C-alpha cells in the first residue's frame, strides 16, 4: 500500500471547484493579452475591452478540461521518456530562476554567472534523485534579453536530462522552442517528444499578464508542455484562508487551461504552482512554511480530481545558509510533496525564498528526496511468509544470523535506501578521524567529487554547432560579440 496524504475531505473538493467557477464569472479574470481575450470571446466569454476583465462561463472550461491529456512524458536528449506527468508519479527537479549562488567558502550569496550555472548543472546531472534538470539560475554576465534562453542553452550543452524551464517574454519563448527543436531534429519531432516543460505564471490575484497568456498560446501551438505556476499569496494577493488560496489557485489554473486549450486543444498542460502564505511580519512569501505545503498538497488533490498532471514548488527554505532550518523545511516539504503524489516537485537546492541556488544544498536535498521517495514506496510484501520463513535451521539466536541469509543479500537494497556520504552514520571515532564534518562539510566534499567525476554528454556536433550559431546570432543582436559559454563548453569547436 502506498502511503498518501490527503488534506481535503471528499465534500470539499467539489465546493472548491464550484467556487472557482464562480470566481471566473465574478469578479472574472483580468487577461492582458489581446489574442487570449479574442480566443475567450470567440468561445463565448464576456470580455470588457476597457478593463480587460473576462468573465469565463463554466462550459468553456469544461470543454477545455475534456481535451487536456491526463498524462504525457518529457524526454531526455536521446528521446527516451524519462519523466512521466500524470497519475501519482512523483519526480523532483532543482528550483529554477535564482539570481544568486551560495559561495560554499564565504557563504556570500554572489550574483550568478555562467560558471556558476555550469557547476550546478554538472552536479544535478549526476544525482539520480533529480529526474529533470531545471534552468536553475539567471546568469548576470549576459544581457537581459538573453537571460531566459541562455540558461536553457547551457543546460542543453551540459546535460542529457529532461528540462524544466520557462521564458521571460513573448519573443524569447519562440527562440527557446526553436532551440529545443534544433536538438529534437525539428518542430514535429519536438512536439512528438518534448525535452522540456515551460513554467508559465499567472499573477495573483486572478491576472494573466500579456506575456503569461502569450506564452500559454505559443507553447500550446508548438505542442511543448506548459506548467501553470499559480502563486496565490494567502493574506495578501489571495484570501487569507488556506482553502481560499486553494480556490483562487483553481480559478487561475482553470482560466489558464481554457486559454491554452482554445489555442490548441489537446496540448499538454500541468496544474502547478508556487503558492505561499504571506508572512505578516516580514511581508515575505515563506516557501518553507508548513501552511505553504498544505496549500500545495490541497491544490494537487483538486488537480488530481480533475484528472490533471500536477506540479508544486516544495522542498525549499527561507534560510540563507545550509543550516538546520534549511534542512527541516526542505525535508518536510519534499516529504509532503511526495506523499501528495505531485508529479513534479521543484525547489531543491534553493535558499532564501527561491533567490539563491546552492550545489551543496542540491546534494543534501537529494538525500531528503531519496527518503521521501523511499517513504512512498511504502511497506512491501517481498516474501510468502512475513517472518516465519526467515527462522530456519540456521538460526541459533545470535545477532548476526540474518546477515548470513541469501535473502538478506538479495533484498536489502530493495528495502533500504543507501544514502550518499552526505548522511553521517559513522561511529563517533570515525567521525572525529574524518575531520568532525557537519552536513555542510560533507556536502562540500560530495560536490567536489561530483565535479571531478562529471563527463560531458556526447552530443551530435552538427546540432551543437547549429545551436551555437542560433544563440550567437541572438547574442549579437543583444550587443554581445561572443558567448561566455562557448569558450567553456566541453563540446565547443
Amino acid at each position, binding site marked *: 500500500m502506498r502511503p498518501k496524504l490527503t488534506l481535503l475531505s471528499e465534500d470539499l473538493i467539489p465546493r472548491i471547484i464550484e467556487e472557482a467557477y464562480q470566481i471566473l464569472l465574478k469578479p472574472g479574470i483580468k487577461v492582458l493579452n489581446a489574442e487570449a481575450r479574442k480566443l475567450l470571446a470567440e468561445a463565448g466569454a464576456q470580455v470588457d475591452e476597457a478593463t480587460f476583465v473576462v468573465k469565463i462561463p463554466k462550459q468553456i472550461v469544461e470543454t477545455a478540461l475534456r481535451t487536456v491529456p491526463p498524462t504525457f512524458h518529457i524526454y531526455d536528449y536521446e528521446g527516451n521518456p524519462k519523466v512521466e506527468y500524470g497519475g501519482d508519479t512523483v519526480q523532483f527537479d532543482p528550483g529554477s530562476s535564482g539570481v544568486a549562488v551560495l559561495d560554499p567558502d564565504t557563504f556570500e550569496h554572489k550574483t550568478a554567472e555562467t560558471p556558476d550555472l555550469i557547476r550546478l548543472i554538472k552536479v544535478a546531472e549526476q544525482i539520480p534523485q533529480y529526474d529533470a534538470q531545471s534552468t536553475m539560475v539567471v546568469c548576470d554576465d549576459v544581457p537581459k534579453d538573453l537571460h531566459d534562453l541562455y540558461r536553457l542553452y547551457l543546460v542543453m550543452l551540459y546535460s542529457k536530462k529532461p528540462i524544466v524551464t520557462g521564458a521571460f517574454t513573448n519573443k524569447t519563448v519562440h527562440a527557446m522552442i526553436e532551440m529545443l527543436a534544433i536538438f529534437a531534429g525539428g518542430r514535429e519531432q519536438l512536439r512528438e517528444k518534448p525535452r522540456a516543460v515551460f513554467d508559465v505564471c499567472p499573477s495573483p490575484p486572478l491576472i494573466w499578464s500579456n506575456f503569461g497568456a502569450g506564452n500559454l498560446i505559443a507553447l500550446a501551438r508548438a505542442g511543448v508542455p506548459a506548467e501553470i505556476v499559480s502563486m496565490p499569496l494567502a493574506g*495578501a494577493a489571495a484570501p487569507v484562508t488556506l482553502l481560499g488560496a486553494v480556490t483562487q489557485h483553481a480559478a487561475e489554473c482553470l482560466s489558464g487551461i481554457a486559454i491554452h486549450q482554445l489555442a490548441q486543444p489537446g496540448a499538454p498542460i500541468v496544474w502547478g504552482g508556487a503558492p505561499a502564505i504571506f508572512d505578516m511580519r*516580514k*511581508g515575505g512569501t515563506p516557501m518553507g512554511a508548513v501552511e505553504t505545503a498544505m496549500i500545495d498538497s490541497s491544490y494537487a488533490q483538486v488537480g488530481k480530481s480533475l484528472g490533471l498532471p500536477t506540479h508544486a514548488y516544495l522542498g525549499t527554505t527561507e534560510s540563507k545558509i545550509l543550516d538546520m532550518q534549511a534542512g527541516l523545511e526542505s525535508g518536510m516539504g519534499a516529504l509532503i510533496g511526495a506523499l501528495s503524489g505531485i508529479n513534479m516537485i521543484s525547489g531543491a537546492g534553493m535558499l532564501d525564498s527561491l*533567490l539563491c541556488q546552492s550545489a551543496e544544498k542540491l546534494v543534501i536535498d537529494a538525500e531528503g528526496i531519496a527518503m521521501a521517495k523511499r517513504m512512498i514506496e511504502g511497506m512491501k510484501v517481498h516474501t510468502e511468509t512475513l517472518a516465519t520463513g526467515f527462522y530456519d535451521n540456521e538460526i541459533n539466536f545470535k545477532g548476526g544470523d540474518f546477515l548470513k541469509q541469501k535473502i538478506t543479500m538479495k533484498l536489502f537494497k530493495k528495502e533500504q535506501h543507501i544514502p550518499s556520504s552526505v548522511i553521517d552514520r559513522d561511529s563517533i571515532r570515525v567521525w572525529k578521524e574524518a575531520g568532525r564534518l557537519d552536513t555542510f562539510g560533507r556536502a562540500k566534499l560530495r560536490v567536489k567529487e561530483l565535479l571531478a567525476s562529471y563527463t560531458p554528454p556526447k552530443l551530435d556536433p552538427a546540432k551543437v554547432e547549429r545551436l551555437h550559431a542560433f544563440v550567437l546570432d541572438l547574442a549579437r543582436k543583444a550587443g554581445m560579440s561572443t558567448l561566455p559559454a562557448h569558450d567553456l563548453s566541453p563540446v565547443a569547436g
Partner: protein
Amino acid sequence: MHEELYKQMAQSIIDGEKETAIELAQKSIELGIPPLDAITNGFVVGVNYIGDLFGKGEAFLPELVMAGEAMKAAVAVLEPELLKLGEAREMMGRVVLATVEGDIHEIGKTLVGTMLSAAGFEVTDLGVDQPAEKIIGKALEINAQIIGLSALLTTTMVRQREVIEELDKEGLRPRIKVMVGGAPITREWAEKIKADGTSEDAVGAVQLAKKLVGKE
C-alpha cells in the same frame, strides 16, 4: 484639553477602525479643534505607536495596513478644513511610486505608499508595469523629490537600474532621489545600481524617505 478625544483618535488608528477615525475627525471639526492639532496630537500618535510595535515584531502587516488606511481616511476628512484655514499639514515631500515595467506586483509598493501618506508625504502611486519615461515624466510634472521603484521579480529588478540611468542621463540627480525595494532587492544591489537607498519594510521606507528629504 481634548486629551480624551486625542486618545480615542490614536486608538482608532491602532485598532485600524476607519469608520471610527472618520467619526472622530468629524467630531473634532464640530468641536472647533484645529485640524492640525487633531492630526498631530491624535491620529499621528496612533500611527507612530503601531509603527513602533511593528518594528519590534509585535504588530503585523494587516494591523499596519489597516492603521494606514484609517489614517488616510481621517486626514481626508480634515484636509478641507486645513485648506479653509489656509493651513497645511507639514508636507514631508513628494514621492512618485511605481512598480517597474514588466512587473505587476504591488503589495509592497502599496504598503509603502500607505505608510508614506500616513507619515505626511504626498504620494503619487502610478501602479504597476511602468516604463522609465512615464515614471520620470510624472516625477517632473509634480516636482517630486523622491522616486520609489518596486520590483518583485528577479527578472525585472534590472529595470530599476534603467530608471536610475535615465535620470542620470537627464542630469536629474541628485535633485530626484531614488529608493528601491522588493523581495529580491539587497543593499548590495541598491549600491550597485547607484540607488539612494533601500529598506526591508514599509516602516523603514518611511525613515529612509525622511532621511532623503533631510527631515529625519
